[in-house]
């Protein structure tokens, strides 16, 4: 390998790394700037990925820059051209390289190669291509460091203070939570997919309300959704008809000999006790400790009537159980009677659980409605408790919440009235305040007419002179402007004459002498004259 080529290989290696450094810096600058922007976004809107993305962008910029720089290795010819430029060798080196590559052996090529080699003799690669920190190097470094720092100081989502849930929402949610648990317990006794689904839905909504409702309005919305879900689910468990039927059945049974206890319990809505009474009665009959129910036309007839009523009320299961009991009594079979009593007890227990669920759901609706009322602006909470903030105190229901003070309890009833929760209160915000406003109405009449004026217009000699002086000043100003334009710009002769005559016509002396009002418009005479002059 000739000296020239050795030199060029060394130079190429150096330029390759220098090019890689330059590219790394350039692309890194872009990546870091992007990362910095991402970091700033993370500062303003903290989230999980911006910090990571900011660091990744800065690192990727550097990596891509290095990779592209390494991939773009300069050619020997390019290095020769660069060497020519750097050492001001007037294209000696790259010409020699080309002649050498072509294998040219004529004297000119040899002489040229010798000339180029001689010219390169005094040059050093390190001097021709010295290591220099790239032009934007410091900017890239600063941008990268900034991106990393910003990414590090960006708050993590968990560190971000969660928005305050208003006290009213917290308190109401806790109250509702207890009711929901009760509904869930009751629902467990009655295996139903719909009820399980409702319980899950309400639980989710309650969680949402507890953790995501940042204002009372949000909570009210959630409460409305919960009410809607409960109302939709309550339809299949509507127990008013069932309760009425069971009440009548209880009264009927209470009138029958042997069924007094069970009938009384049934009439009073104590379905579990009634079930237990019938089951005990069946056990006693089975054990022979209780005499067989006496067959009689009245009992059979009464049971038949009740079976018919139950059938009409849509309680076919109850109707069948009563019919079975009637038949067992008619047949005088102890075992049949025992089985029929057990069956009737089971049906009552089942109906009882269904009624209990319905009651719980109605109770739930009532609770939701109460919660909505309490969270209305006049529902008892102060503004801070509704919108998030320290309780204002006074008569607020949220007073003392979060301070270790006992929170307010609402009276609960295990036996709500039959009509509880069935009506809707239209006046959600309560009645109008009774406080009388301290206002005094006063009627103000305007005075029609010209009235007094603060400005007086005088027609006096002083006034005229003042106006004339002002006019002269303005005239002089515009006349100078006009003259300047005529000197500096090529205004046609006809127009020049028109302008000149215009200013003569409105000259202050002439106006004052004539005592005329100045009309600043150009009259027809002037226009015609201008056209004529222009034509010439």
């Amino acid at each position: 390998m000739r000296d020239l080529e050795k030199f060029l290989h060394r130079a190429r290696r150096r330029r390759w790394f220098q090019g890689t450094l330059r590219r790394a810096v350039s692309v890194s600058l872009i990546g870091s700037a992007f990362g910095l922007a991402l970091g700033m976004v993370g500062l303003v809107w903290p989230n999980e990925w911006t910090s990571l993305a900011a660091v990744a962008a800065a690192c990727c910029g550097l990596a891509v820059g290095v990779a592209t720089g390494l991939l773009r290795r300069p050619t020997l010819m390019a290095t020769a051209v660069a060497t020519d430029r750097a050492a001001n060798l007037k294209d000696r080196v790259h010409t020699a390289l080309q002649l050498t590559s072509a294998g040219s052996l004529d004297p000119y090529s040899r002489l040229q190669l010798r000339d180029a080699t001689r010219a390169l003799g005094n040059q050093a690669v390190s001097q021709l291509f010295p290591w220099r920190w790239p032009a934007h190097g410091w900017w890239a470094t600063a941008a990268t460091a900034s991106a990393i720092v910003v990414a590090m100081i960006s708050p993590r989502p968990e560190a971000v203070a969660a928005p305050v849930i208003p006290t009213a929402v917290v308190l109401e949610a806790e109250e509702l939570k207890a009711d929901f648990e009760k509904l869930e317990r009751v629902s467990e006794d009655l295996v139903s997919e719909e009820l399980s689904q409702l319980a899950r839905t309400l639980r989710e909504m309650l969680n949402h309300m507890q953790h995501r409702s940042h204002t009372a309005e949000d909570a009210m919305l959630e409460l409305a959704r919960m009410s809607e879900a409960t109302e939709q689910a309550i339809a299949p468990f509507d127990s008013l008809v069932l309760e009425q039927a069971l009440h009548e059945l209880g009264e009927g049974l209470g009138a029958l000999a042997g069924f007094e206890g069970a009938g009384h319990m049934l009439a009073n809505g104590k379905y579990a006790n009634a079930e237990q009474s019938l089951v005990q009665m069946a056990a006693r009959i089975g054990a022979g400790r209780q005499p067989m129910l006496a067959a009689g036309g009245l009992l059979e007839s009464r049971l038949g009537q009740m079976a018919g009523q139950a059938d009409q009320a849509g309680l076919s299961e109850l109707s069948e159980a009563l019919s079975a009991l009637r038949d067992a009594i008619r047949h005088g079979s102890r075992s049949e009677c025992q089985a029929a009593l057990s069956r009737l007890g089971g049906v009552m227990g089942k109906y009882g659980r269904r009624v209990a669920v319905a009651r719980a759901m109605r109770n739930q609706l009532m609770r939701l409605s109460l919660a909505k009322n309490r969270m209305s602006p006049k529902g008892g909470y102060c503004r801070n408790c509704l919108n998030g903030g320290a309780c204002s105190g006074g008569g607020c229901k949220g007073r003392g919440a979060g301070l270790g003070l006992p929170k307010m309890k609402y009276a609960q009833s295990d036996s709500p009235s039959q009509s509880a929760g069935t009506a809707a209160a239209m006046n959600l915000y309560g009645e109008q305040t009774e406080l009388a406003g301290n206002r005094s109405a006063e009627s103000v009449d305007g005075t029609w007419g010209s009235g007094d004026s603060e400005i007086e217009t005088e027609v006096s000699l002083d006034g005229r002179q003042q106006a004339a002086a002002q006019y002269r000043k303005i005239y002089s100003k515009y006349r100078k402007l006009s003259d300047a334009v005529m000197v500096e710009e090529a205004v046609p002769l006809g127009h020049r004459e028109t302008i000149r005559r215009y200013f003569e016509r409105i000259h202050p002396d002439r106006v004052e002498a004539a005592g005329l009002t100045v009309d600043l418009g150009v009259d027809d005479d002037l226009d015609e004259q201008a056209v004529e002059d222009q034509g010439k």
Partner: protein
Amino acid sequence: MTTQEIDALESQLSSFREIFGRMQNEIGRVIVGHDDVLRHVLTALMVGGHVLLEGVPGLGKTLLVRTLGDVLDLTFRRIQFTPDLMPADLIGTNVILDSDSGARHFEFQRGPVFTHILLADEINRATPKTQSALLEAMQERSVTVGGTTYLLEEPFFVMATQNPLEMEGTYPLPEAQLDRFLFKLLVRFPTTEEFELIMERTTGAEDPAADRIFDGHDVLKLRRLVRRVPISDEVRRQAITMVVATHPAAEQATEMVKRYVRYGASPRAGQAMILAGKVLAVLDERVNVSREDLADVILPALRHRIILNFEAQAEGITPDAILRDVVEQHSLGMAR
């Protein structure tokens, strides 16, 4: 290939530089200033090109050419172009001659173009027809009259002078003829110092004269020597780029070219740049043409080959301004 051969070549190139320098010195004894003009005239002579000198009367254009004829041991003729000059006055004509036996026959009477160095003085004062009579002589080195072609003896070197086109009684040279000139050189008014020296030399007792130091064979030898100077593909490509960039429709054209140029330079412009660049390279003790050489000759080689449009003429844009813009825009167009 031996080292002796390379040394011999180096010695020849060295003597080329010496001869060139001596010619400059000899002519410089008579001509004051115009160093660049003189250098370019000699460069054109060394590569076999013709030169057009432009300048107002009285700047020494004719003296320069005449002195060059004195320095070279070559035949020299001068034609003063006038509006009534005919082509036959230039290239010659067939005349009827009586022989001793009384028979008559045609004989070709050679015109002044049959010379080594031809000074076409004030060439743009002749009609285009007469100007065009020089076309074949300049390009083909031959003259055809009456169906017979007569070869001109080498070296054949035309130096034409012209007055600026704005002057009265001038006919602009046709583009085809302008393209035949290797260089168009602008002869400018001398500086005050040069002016003083001119006055001193021309108003004294002695009339300065140059010695003959050269002959035609030497010129041809030097031409052959110069033409073999190598040029790299990169530099050749740069020359081509510069020529193409003068064409308004070309991709490389600058904004100025697109706006002011009607027609760009012909390929002859590229040849002129490279050939002249070879001479400059040897003079700079190099054996390769460089971009600096091209930049050095682009103005004289291209200024008469680009035709400006009306807008350029109206705005007073000169070809030199456009060419400087081309050099500026394309000087870095080398491979990475």
